C-alpha cells in the first residue's frame, strides 16, 4: 500500500521504499533520505530570475550566497523538492518517518 507523504512523494508501506508520486519510480529505502535516490542539480539563481541591470543588486540573487538545489525523479524528471542553500551547505535530511507507526496507520482515503 502506498501513502502520499508529500505532493511528489509516496511511501510503499509494505516494501518501505520511497516512490515518485507522478511515475511511481523507486527512490530508495524509506529509512534513508529520499534525496539520495534523486538526480540533483545546484542551479544558479540567475537561471530563474534573470538579472535586468548590470549592478551588484540586479533583480536576481547572488550565486556566491545562494543556489537552488533541485531534486529530480530519475524516471520522469519531476521536480520532487528544492532546497535554497549556500554553496556547499550540507543537504538536509528533511523527512525521517517513524516507519513502524506509519505501517500501523489505516489507509488514507485518497490515492
Amino acid at each position, binding site marked *: 500500500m502506498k*501513502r*502520499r*507523504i*508529500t*505532493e*511528489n512523494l509516496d511511501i510503499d508501506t509494505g516494501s518501505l521504499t520511497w516512490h515518485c508520486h507522478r511515475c511511481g519510480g523507486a527512490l530508495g529505502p524509506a529509512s534513508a533520505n529520499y*534525496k*539520495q*535516490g*534523486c*538526480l*540533483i*542539480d*545546484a542551479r544558479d539563481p540567475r537561471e*530563474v*530570475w*534573470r538579472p*535586468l*541591470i548590470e*549592478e*551588484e*543588486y*540586479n*533583480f*536576481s*540573487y*547572488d550565486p*556566491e*550566497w*545562494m543556489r*537552488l*538545489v*533541485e531534486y*529530480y525523479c*530519475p524516471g*520522469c*524528471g*519531476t*521536480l*520532487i*523538492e*528544492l532546497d*535554497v*542553500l*549556500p*554553496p*556547499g*551547505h*550540507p*543537504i*538536509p535530511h*528533511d*523527512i*525521517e*518517518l*517513524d516507519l513502524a*507507526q*506509519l505501517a500501523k*496507520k489505516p489507509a*488514507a482515503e485518497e490515492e
Partner: protein
Amino acid sequence: MTSSAALEIPEYLRVRPIEVSPATVIGWTRPEPIGELDRSCLEALRPGDYEIYDEKLANYLDEAREIFIRSGVSGMLRSGDLIVAVYTANGDLASASAGTYLHCVTAMLPIKFVLHAYLGEPTVLVREGDIFYANEARYGGIHNPDQMAFMPVFHDGELIAWTAALAHQPETGAVEPGGMPLSARTRDDEGMKLTPIKIGENYRIRRDLLDMVVNFIGRAPRMQAIDTRARVTGADRLRRRVQQIAAERGNGFVRGLLRELVVRAEQAARRRVAQWNDGVYRTAVFCDTIGRETGLLRASLAAIKKGDTITFDFTGTSPENDSSYNCFPHVVAAHAATFLYAYAFHDLPVSNGLLAVFDWVIPQGTIFNASPNAAISNAPLVNCLTLAAIPKVMAQMLYDSPSRELIGACNGNTTGPVVFSGRNQYGIPVAEVDAAPMNTEGQGARSDLDGVDAYGFPWAHAGRAPDVEETETEYQVLRLYFRLRGDNAGFGMRRGGAGSETALAVRHVDAMPWNQRSRNAKITCALGLFGGYPSSSCFGIHVRGTNLWEKMARGDPDVPANTVELATRRAIAGEYRFEHPSRPRRIGMNGDLIVHLSGGGGGYGDALLRDPGDVVRDLKCGAISDWTARNVYRVELDPATHEVDAVATERLRAQARRERLRRGRPWKEFIAEWSKLRPSDEALGHFGSWPEGTPDPGKVRSWL
C-alpha cells in the same frame, strides 16, 4: 529579577514558579495547572454556556480592538499590528482579537510576571483599577517597540481575569529613529525598556508616569502620548465587558468560561497532532543580514513529532552576534505562533491551550537564545528564519493527514520597512514606519490554491496597509508608485502571491532622516514547498539629486510607473544606488527617491505542472513576464493574443524534463563536487565555522 513575595497567594492566582530570566520565561507559555476553584467553575458550566459566551466574548474583543485602533495614531497601530486579549485570573491566554498572533505568546508573559513577583509584594500589589505597562523583552516581550497596557479585572472584590492591549510603537528613543536600530550593539543602545510597572491606579493613568514614558520618546512625544492612552483605552474597554459578564452570570461563570477556552484548545490540538505521522522533520533556512552588515545567518530546525506532542529543536542555529539581530527563546515561540494560530490550528480558540503540545529546545548562545545584555531590537527580523522554518516542517508533517489543506508555503517574509523621521510638512516631529509595503507582502501558495497577492504582513496577518493619501497628508513624502511586483511571487504549480513595490519621494522638507532594515537580497528565506520556488530578490534603490519635480510639473510621460522601468530606463535623472535593503540611518534630500521592494509568497509544486491557462492569467495581470512564461513555466503562446499552443507547450515541458535528467547528478557524484564549495568570505563573516556554525572565538561577545 527575584520575587520578595510576602503575602499568601491563593491557589487560583498562582503561576508555575520559575527562576525568571530571558531564557526561561518561555516556561510560562504553557497553561497553568487547573486549580480546585477553576475546576469547580468548569464543572458548573451548563450546555450552551460556552458556545454563547465564547461568541459574545469574541465580539467584545473585536469591539475593544476597533476602539484601540481608532484611538491611536502611529502607523503600525493603525494598520492593526496589535492584539487585544483576555486572560484567566492566573494569566493564561483565554481569547484574543489578534492583528498579530505573535502576542498570543508575548503579551501573556508580563502578566504572569506581575502575578509571580508583585501580587504578594507589599510595595506593589495588584488592586482594582490598576493599570500596568511594559515593553521589556527580558520579561516576555519581543522587542521594546512592542508596548502593552494590561489591567486586572476585579468584580465584587475578586480578581477574576486580566485584559491587555499591545501594539508596536515606531519610536523608542534608541540610537536611531524607528525603535529597531541597526547600529545597536548592546541593550543600552535600544532606548526605553520598561519592566512591568504600574502606570495607573483607580482606573486613571498617573500623569507623572505618563510624562516619564513620553520623556523617553523625544523624537515623537505626541505619538507616544496618544498611543499609550490608546493601549489603556483598548484594555479598559475589554475590562468593562468582562465585568459586565460577571455582573450577568457571576464570577464563577467568568472563571469557568475563560478556563474552558484554554482546556478546549489543548484537547483539540492534541487530537489533531495525534493524527499526523510520527517522525523527525528538518530544515535549514538562511537570511543575509546582520545589523548593518550583510552576512549569513542560519536557523536549523528539527521538529520531533511523537503522539500528541511536538518538540521544536533549534540546535545548529547561528551563534549570537554583535548586533541587534538576536532574541530570546519566547520570541521564537511567538513567531512560530503566527503560523500555528493562523494555519494549522486556525479554528481553535485563540488561547494558550494550544501551546501545551509544544516543547522547545533553543540552545544558549545562539541568535535565538542570546545573552541577557544582547541587543535584541531587531528580534522580529532575525525571526524571519522562524517564519520560514516552521511552515516548511509543518507542511512535511501535515501533508499525509486530514490537515493537508492547512499547509502553506512561506509568506513574503521580507518586510523591514523604511522608517522616516524629522519634522513633517507641519513642523511636527515624527518618527514613522512606512506600513504600506510591509502590509502588502504576498501569501505563500497552498496545496490547492495560489497565494493571495498583497495579502498582508507575515508578522500580523490581519494588518492592513494605510491609505496612501492619508500617509501623504500626514508625512513629508509622496508615493510615486505603489503596486504589485511582477515576477516576484514564487513560481510553481501553485504560485505564491505577489508582494508590492513602492517609491517614496522626499517632499515638502529640505531633508528627511530615514533608514530601512530588510533582507532577502542575496539569499532568501521566503521559501516554496515541494518544488515551488521562493520569491524574487528584494533589494533597495536610492536615487539622489533627482529632477522628479520638474518632470512631474512638465507632465513628462516617461515618469516611471514601476521599479523595472525606474531601474532599466532611468528616465529620472540622478545618482542611482542599488544596494542591500538593510540601510542604516542617512539623510534623504528633497526629491530623493527611496524604493522599497516587499516580498512575494513561496510557490508550491513543480512549475512545469502549472496549468498553462493559469500561466496566461499570470501574464495578463502582470504577475509574470513573457520571459518567465517561456523560460520557467515553459509555455508556448502567441505574444499578441496570449493563446496557448498546447502541443508546443507539452513539447517544451518534455524537453525541460529531459534537460533536468541530463543536468542532474546521482547523489554520490553530486555530493563529491558540492561539498567542495563554500559561500563567499563576505557571507561567512559572522557565521562561525563552515558549515558547522561553531562560534568564532574572536567574535564571542565580551560577557559570554
